[in-house]
Structures are given as C-alpha cells and as structure tokens.
C-alpha cells in the first residue's frame, strides 16, 4: 500500500511515462495482482481504454513475434564461382551446397509453445586448402587425369636473398621474382550435415521464458547445444528486454586420409613427430588410418533491448559475448611452409632453395568475441513498406574487427504479393596470426651425428627402437659396439631431426575466412500469400568477396576473390489461420462438418501414395511426407545369404572378381504434397522431393589383389569413408481422376509424370591424381529419366472398418539418362485393412508385393567397378512386405483438420537380382492438412 501511495504522489509531479513503465515492471513480477491493481486504479478513461486495447489479440502482438502456429519448408542452393588460378585449369567443380529445412511451431497448451527445426546440408566440390606463391605450383598436373590437382608436399621452391619467391624458368635455368599468390584447391566427395533443434516456451502476459537445445551431426564434426532465453515486455509493451544464454560442445573427428595426408606433413613418422610437437591430436589407428581429435566449447550470452519509438518505427539494440575454447582449427586446411636452410650456399643466380611442406594450421585455443548490434525498422506510410536497417560490430581477441551493414526494403504489392530487395556489406580485418604462407629460416630436417661427428643410422622399418648404427672406415655397417651387422636385415637410414617447432610462429592459418576483405551482396525475395494462411516464397542472393572491398583498405590480394549465389524456395503454412479458415468452411457446408467428411474419405496407411482425393472443388491440401529405408546385414543372392567367396567370384561379371560389398545403406526422402481440386472429379498434385543417402562399404574376404592404380586408390577410400549424397530428387506432377464414388466405396486413378530433377551425375572425388568416377547407381538422387507413374486405387469403409487396394507402376519413358543408364520399371500391388480404435485413431495392416527391374545400360564415363553395387545386374528384385500403421486425425480444436500417419513396413521376403543387401524395413510418416 505504501508503494501505491508513493506512486500517486509521483504521478502528479514526475513524468507519466516513467510511472507507467514502473507499473508494468512490477506487474511482471506479480501479474495477477497487477491486473487487479490496474483495474482498481484505472482512474482515467485513457487507462481503461489502454487496458481494454491490450486485451485485443491483434494489438497484443509485439512486433518481433510471428504466427502462433506454423509449419515451413525451405530449400536452398549455394553455388560458388570458379577461383582465380592464373591460367591453370583445375579439374574440380566449385563447391555447391543443397540445404533443406523444415520447421514447425505448435501450441501445446494455452501458454506453452513448442518449436522444432530440422536442417540438412549436403555439399561437395572444391575449396582452397592452402595458399602459396604461384611459383610453388600448388595446383599442378599430377597423375593420369587431365587438370590440376593439389601438390603441397616436398616441393623444391626458390627465393631471393630478401625471401621473395622466385619463379624458375626450367629451360633457361633462370629465376625471376614472382610475388603472385594463389589458392591451392582440393575437392571432397559429398558430405552431409544434419541438425535438429527445439525450443519450448512458456508465455506470461508480458514475459516469456524459453529453453532449447539441439544436435548437429557430420561424419567429422558433432555439436550439441542448449540455450535459455527470456523476454520481458514492459512500458505497455513499448519496450522489450531479451536475454539469451547458450552452451555448445563440439567434437572434431577428422579422418586424415591418404589423399589429404600428402599436404599435411605426410608419413606415419611425420605424423608421430608432428604429434610430438603439438598436443597429441592425431591418433594413428591400425592400418594407418589417422584421425585428428579435437574438442571445443562455446559459451555465449546476448542481451537485447527492443523499443517502439513511435507508431511507425522501432529499434532493437543488443550486445553479445561468446567465449570459445578448445580446438578451433579446420583439420583440412594446411599452411604451406617453406623451410630455407640458412647455412646453404646460394645457387649461381643467388637463389636460395627451400623445401615446402603443408603444415596443419594452428589456431589459439581460446577466443573471446564481443558483438554489438542495432536494428532499425521504419514503416513508410505512403507505400505501406518497411525499411529495415541492421548494423553489427564484431570484435575478438584474434585481432578481428568486423562491420556488417544490411538494408531490406519489404514492399507489399497487394493480392498477397511482397517483394523484398536487400543489400549487405561486410568487412573484416585479418586475424593477427593469418599468413598466406610461411617462410621458416631453418632446414626442414637435419642429419643427427654422434659426439665424434659420425652420422647416426637407424632401422628404416623401426626407427624408434633405440638401436643405432654407424659406418666404419670401410663403409661397413656396424652397431654401437663396432660389431658388423647384416645390412639387409637392418635396412639402415640416416637418423634425422625435424625442424624446430619453436622457430615457427605460435599460431598460423591461411584460411581465407581469417584474411582481411570486404564482401558485398544483394538479392531479392518474392513471396505470395494465399488465402487460408499458405504462402510461397522464392529468392536469390549474389555475394562477392574481395580484398579490395575491405573497409579502410589493406585487404588480401585479388587472387583470393570469389563469389557465390544462393537461391531459395519456401512454403509456409500458418496453422492458426488455416484453422480459422477451416472453421468458416464447416459453417457453410451445413452438414456433419468438413473435417469429419475428409476423415472418412478413404485415407490409406502412411506408406500408400495417391490414396485419397479431395472431394470438393476449390479444396487445397498441403502435406509433408517422410520416408526412410534401410538396408543392412549379410548379402543376399536371390533369397539366400551369399558368402564372400560367392560374391567375389560371381558378383562382378566379366572381371577378375569383386573387391567390395556394401555393408549398409540408408535413404531418407522428404516430400511435399501440394494438392488442389479444380473440380470434384479431378485433383492436381505437385510433389517435389528432397533425398539423401549414405552407404558404407566393406572389403570382401578373399577379394583379389587390385590390378590398376585406380582400384588400389579407390578401395581403401571406399572402406574408410561413408559415402553421402543429398539434394533435390525427382519432381512428380499428377492428375487424380475419380472413377467411381458410392457410399462406402470409391475408385480413382492417378496418372503422373516424374521429371528428372534429381542429379544423376554424382561422382567420387579424385584420389591420388586418379579419377574417382561415378558413384553407385543407388546413390544418385533421381532416375534421370522421364517416368510415367500410373496407379489405380480402391477404398471402402463401413462403420469402424476401412479397407483398400492399389496397383501402381513406374514406367521409364527413356532407355537411358544423361549419365548412360536407366533404372528398371516398377510394379507394385498392395491391399490393406484398418479399424478405428478411437474416433481419432485408426490402426492398419497392409500387405505389399513389389517387382523392380534391373538397371539398363551403364554409366557413360569413368566408373570404378569394385563390387556388385556397380553392376546393373545387381539391381531390382521381387519383394514382399507387411505394413503396420497408425493414422491420427485431429477432428477439432486449434489443430483441427491436421492428420498425422505412421507406417512401418517389415520385409517378409526378398528375392533380389544378383547380389544385394537385404532390406531391414522402411518407415513412412506423413502430415497433411486439407482446407
């Protein structure tokens, strides 16, 4: 009470704004009491009106909040441009990335929100792994394939007395100064990252608390994170405070394979001495496989303030701090280091000769980062547009200061169309330890001599066993005691000591991301909002990275310039808006309800496609379909298990035998179902899809010795690495036509075309200067051919029972795709029965019989055939499955009209062509909403 009295006296004298801010502030701490107080002390009509207005849902919304319940899907494609290699023709394609994102936000209870997000990126192509003077010839023709590959190891290089790199003219044996730098490019086979995260929020009238977490998985990098956030509105929601905290723990487990090793200080003894110099990061596994381990932790905090300035403008300002510790280097980036022995006698032209080695980059193991950001949003009255201006400052103790400026103009055009042009400028300083390449004035290695100056010899195969040998006067090999030993048994080599690590800088990196540069990007996004809360969006952005764009000048040379573009497409569904639209629909339809009707319009189990039609003209349906299939276990030949010798001898026709077999394969498919009913007897359907696959291989027991260099190189590569591919799959367009419709019985046909939008030209990266060639048929992202996909479906229902049957097929309309092959045709028949366990839940059982033809034709380019998966005869077969499914349907409420189905398909019998892995099962999950 004392507090209230105090307030009243204040009100008469001090500023009203401050008082109302305080009232809101105390209201947050005791929300219930504050409401009563507000009602009791609503002395002025303004207060009463304010309280009433705040209760209106539309006005409650703080500007930063989006729709309450929504689902979204987004596809993005990142494509980098070619790098400047100064006339050298690289054989690598620039890096490209395919991204897929699905996100959803639902209301679990009145004040509880749950948001989840799934992101998947698959990338492949070339990136710089090091930088070197052009005279080092880091990109050079090497091996049997055309085009340059990386070369960073044991490279003789030349410098003048001032340590300027010299270009050698081999014919004339003359040298000329050439300071030009160039990136050394290397390529990787496709790799996939998958991230899932969630956020659970509780909202009060004027505050929110959320807790979230997630995981990101790659073959060589795993990251787990958790975060906590709070929002606090006060001052009649004119002001919002945000506080966020997060923790991330990441593990690097990078396989340093035989192809990367040549540019990171190769040989097992090299790695061992490397380990001796740095903390023991590299683990040498049996068989010579080397794995670099690293752990990293990030703690981050961000504090933000959002303020409404007037009826047309608001801003947000914030400050953040992140502390990162642990291994923060990139395990695939090398720093080219030239070792120049200062004791050497310069050559005839005064040139110094050095040996260049690629060393793994070394970054500090702690990084403190501070950010300050400002966002300003202004409504432009005449145009109903919004101008967004963002600025961010970044500073860290690695010596990097960075500035980011971005401006977006969001322009609604009417009829639901919005166009958003955007421009962004970014500039950063180089990290203090950034060096394009290193020069170290010491010999790369030195001979070790004993006290009397004799060179010490050790056993080549076991240099660290403590035994030492010498040459006597007659050049005979003797041990420490001067006794002669067998030259052949010892196989002596000179004992050497590597360079002194202390003479190198403590930290060094030539990662272009740590160099000084500026970047300018611009793009446009166009979106169309349809009625009932569905919107589609497409956008593009072009980005150029240039040293000369750095703020204040002094950026990296133009050799490091590059550009990329990103295109994206998205579908968003506002579930709350849909629910409202659906409710309106019901009132007009005047019968038992639209939702009840659609519930009984013959939905099959989740694994059955084209199982139902929209029954009224003008209806839409959006859906998402996920399918997962897994193959694993002992190889099959026909229906029987096949032994390794059988596969070696018979699995690879017209060859010396098989070397490898797949040990597991998994396929994930994400599909969007977009359906529209122009009339009640015809539905049109568009089905874009996104696929990703991984496959692991094993060496077959009794496999023959590889005979070609390509086989020698490819076999260990296949066994060491899981293969990943991912990206857009084929796109289906279908027409569903009603043939018969009576109470309880329905027949329709679907006629469709699948367009070959999936990539069928995916190749392995090149190893050892040998061409990796096409990846297995199964790992390609589509069929590559135009395909005809007909089906006919019957569904029936009575009381709590429902049933159905479907015959479907895939007929390839071309004999071969652009890569030279075509998958076999497919025929499938299925029948199912379902029972309503509850009025919203149906259980189903299904039988499926599938016949798939073998692959026709063969890859029309380089292609290393190593196992049955590379032979067209080991594709296709006859399969029996049993499916168990659940269909849930939300009849009413906020999420009314949503349908969720799952089905597990359990293989009963496989009868495969050739030699193939058995199927372990397949999961289908679908979500759909008709409106």
């Amino acid at each position, binding site marked *: 009470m004392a507090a209230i009295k105090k307030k009243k006296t204040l009100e008469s004298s001090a500023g009203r*704004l401050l008082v109302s801010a305080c009232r809101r502030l105390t209201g947050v701490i005791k929300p219930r009491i504050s409401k009563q107080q507000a009602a009791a002390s609503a002395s002025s009509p303004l207060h009463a009106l*304010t309280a009433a207005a705040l209760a209106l849902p539309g006005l409650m919304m703080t500007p930063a909040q989006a729709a309450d319940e929504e689902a979204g899907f987004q596809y993005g494609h990142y494509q980098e441009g070619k790098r400047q290699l100064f006339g050298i023709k690289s054989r690598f394609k620039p890096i490209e990335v395919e991204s897929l994102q699905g996100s959803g936000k639902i209301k679990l209870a009145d004040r509880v929100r749950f948001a989840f997000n799934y992101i998947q990126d698959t990338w492949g192509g070339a990136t710089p792994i090091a930088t070197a003077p052009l005279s080092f010839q880091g990109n050079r023709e090497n091996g049997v394939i055309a085009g340059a590959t990386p070369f960073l190891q044991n490279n003789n290089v030349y410098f003048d007395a001032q340590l300027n790199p010299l270009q050698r003219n081999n014919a004339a044996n003359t040298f000329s100064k050439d300071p030009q730098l160039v990136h050394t490019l290397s390529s990787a086979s496709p790799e996939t990252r998958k991230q899932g995260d969630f956020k659970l929020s509780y909202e009060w009238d004027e505050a929110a608390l959320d807790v979230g977490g997630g995981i990101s998985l790659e073959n060589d990098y795993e990251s787990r994170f958790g975060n906590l956030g709070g929002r606090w509105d006060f001052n009649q929601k004119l002001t919002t405070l945000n506080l966020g905290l997060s923790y991330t723990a990441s593990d690097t487990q990078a396989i340093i394979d035989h192809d990367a090793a040549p540019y990171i200080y190769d040989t097992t003894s090299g790695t061992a001495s490397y380990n001796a110099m740095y903390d023991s990061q590299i683990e040498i596994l049996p068989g010579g496989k080397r794995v670099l381990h690293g752990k990293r932790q990030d703690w981050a*905090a961000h504090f933000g303030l959002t303020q*409404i300035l007037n*009826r047309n403008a608001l801003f947000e300002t914030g400050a*953040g701090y992140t502390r990162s510790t642990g291994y923060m280097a990139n395990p695939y980036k090398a720093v080219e280091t030239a070792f120049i022995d200062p004791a050497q006698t310069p050559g005839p032209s005064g040139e110094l000769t050095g040996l260049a080695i690629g060393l793994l980059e070394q970054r500090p193991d702690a990084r403190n*980062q501070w950010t300050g950001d400002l966002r300003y949003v202004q409504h432009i009255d005449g145009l109903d547009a919004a101008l967004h201006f963002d600025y961010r400052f970044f500073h860290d103790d690695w010596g990097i200061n960075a500035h980011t400026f971005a401006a977006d103009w969001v322009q609604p055009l009417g009829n639901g169309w919005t166009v958003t042009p955007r421009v962004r400028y970014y500039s*950063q300083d180089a990290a203090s330890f950034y060096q394009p390449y290193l020069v170290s004035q010491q010999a790369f290695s030195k001979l070790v001599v004993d006290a009397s100056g004799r060179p010490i010899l050790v056993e080549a195969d076991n240099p660290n066993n403590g035994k030492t040998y010498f040459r006597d006067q007659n050049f005979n090999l003797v041990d420490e005691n001067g006794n002669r030993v067998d030259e052949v048994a010892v196989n002596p080599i000179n004992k050497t000591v590597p360079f002194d690590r202390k003479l190198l800088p403590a930290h060094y990196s030539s990662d272009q*991301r740590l160099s000084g540069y500026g970047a300018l990007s611009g793009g446009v996004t166009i979106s169309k909002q349809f009625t009932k809360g569905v919107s589609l*969006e497409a956008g593009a952005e072009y980005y150029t990275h240039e040293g000369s764009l750095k703020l204040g000048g002094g950026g990296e040379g133009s050799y490091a310039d590059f550009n990329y573009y990103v295109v994206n497409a998205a579908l968003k569904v506002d579930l709350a808006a849909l629910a409202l639209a659906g409710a309106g629909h019901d009132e007009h339809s005047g019968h038992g309800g639209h939702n009840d009707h659609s519930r009984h319009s013959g939905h099959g189990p989740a694994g059955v496609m084209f199982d139902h039609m929209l029954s009224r003209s003008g209806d839409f349906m959006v859906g998402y379909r996920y399918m997962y299939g897994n193959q694993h276990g002992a190889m099959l030949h026909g229906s029987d298990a096949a032994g390794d010798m059988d596969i070696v001898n018979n699995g690879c026709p017209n060859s010396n035998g098989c070397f490898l077999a797949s040990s597991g394969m998994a396929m994930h498919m994400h599909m969007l179902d977009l359906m529209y009913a122009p009339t009640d007897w015809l539905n049109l359907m568009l089905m874009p899809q996104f696929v990703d696959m991984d496959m692991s291989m094993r060496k077959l027991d009794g496999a023959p010795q590889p005979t070609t260099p390509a086989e020698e190189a490819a076999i260990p590569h296949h066994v060491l690495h899981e293969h990943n591919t991912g990206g857009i799959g084929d796109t289906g367009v279908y027409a569903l036509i009603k043939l018969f419709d009576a109470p309880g019985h329905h027949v329709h046909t679907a006629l469709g075309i699948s367009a070959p939008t999936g990539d069928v030209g995916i190749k392995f990266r090149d190893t050892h200067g040998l061409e990796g060639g096409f990846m297995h048929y199964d790992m390609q992202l589509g069929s590559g051919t135009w395909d005809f996909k007909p089906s006919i479906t019957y569904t029936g229902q009575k009381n709590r029972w429902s049933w159905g049957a479907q015959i479907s097929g895939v007929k390839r309309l071309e004999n071969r795709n652009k890569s030279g092959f075509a998958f076999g045709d497919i025929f499938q028949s299925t029948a199912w029965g379902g029972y309503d366990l509850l009025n919203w839940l149906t259980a189903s059982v299904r039988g499926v019989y599938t016949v798939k033809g073998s692959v026709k034709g063969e890859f029309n380019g380089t292609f290393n055939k190593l196992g049955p998966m590379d032979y067209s005869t080991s594709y296709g077969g006859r399969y029996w499955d049993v499916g168990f499914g659940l269909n849930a349907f939300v009849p009413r409420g906020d999420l009314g009209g949503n349908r969720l189905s799952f089905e597990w398909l359990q293989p009963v019998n496989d009868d495969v062509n050739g030699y193939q892995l058995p199927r372990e099962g397949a999961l289908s999950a679908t979500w759909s909403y008709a409106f």
Partner: protein
Amino acid sequence: MKRSQLAPAAACLIFGACLSGCAPVAPWERGNLAKPQMALDVNPMLSTLRSHNYSSREAASGGSSAAGGGCGCY
C-alpha cells in the same frame, strides 16, 4: 521485501532515462507496427539459411543471438 522493490526502481531509473526520448504509442496506434513487414526478423527461415552461409565464409559468425549450432564448414 526491500530488495524486490529496489530492483525494479533501479531498472526504472535506467530505462526511464533512455525512454524519455520516445513518444508514447497507444496500443490502438500500433497497427503499422503489427504488420508482418515490420517484424524484426521478417523471414526467420531465410535468415537461418543466410546466416549459415555467411558464417561458413566469414570470421564474425554468430553473436546476433545466443543459440548455438553445428559447423557445416565447407
């Protein structure tokens, strides 16, 4: 008790000072501010994609919010 009253009072002083420059905007005057184009992040999904691309090519990653995430360093 005293503490719980002091803390908001202190906060009021700090923020009152910085808010005194702003005009009060009544809830019924916030129609423009509630429009989708006025959201601080108009397109969160696209922002996620963009910031992932930027952070895989720039040193000044993260920091605009405290969220955490994977690497995907290509």
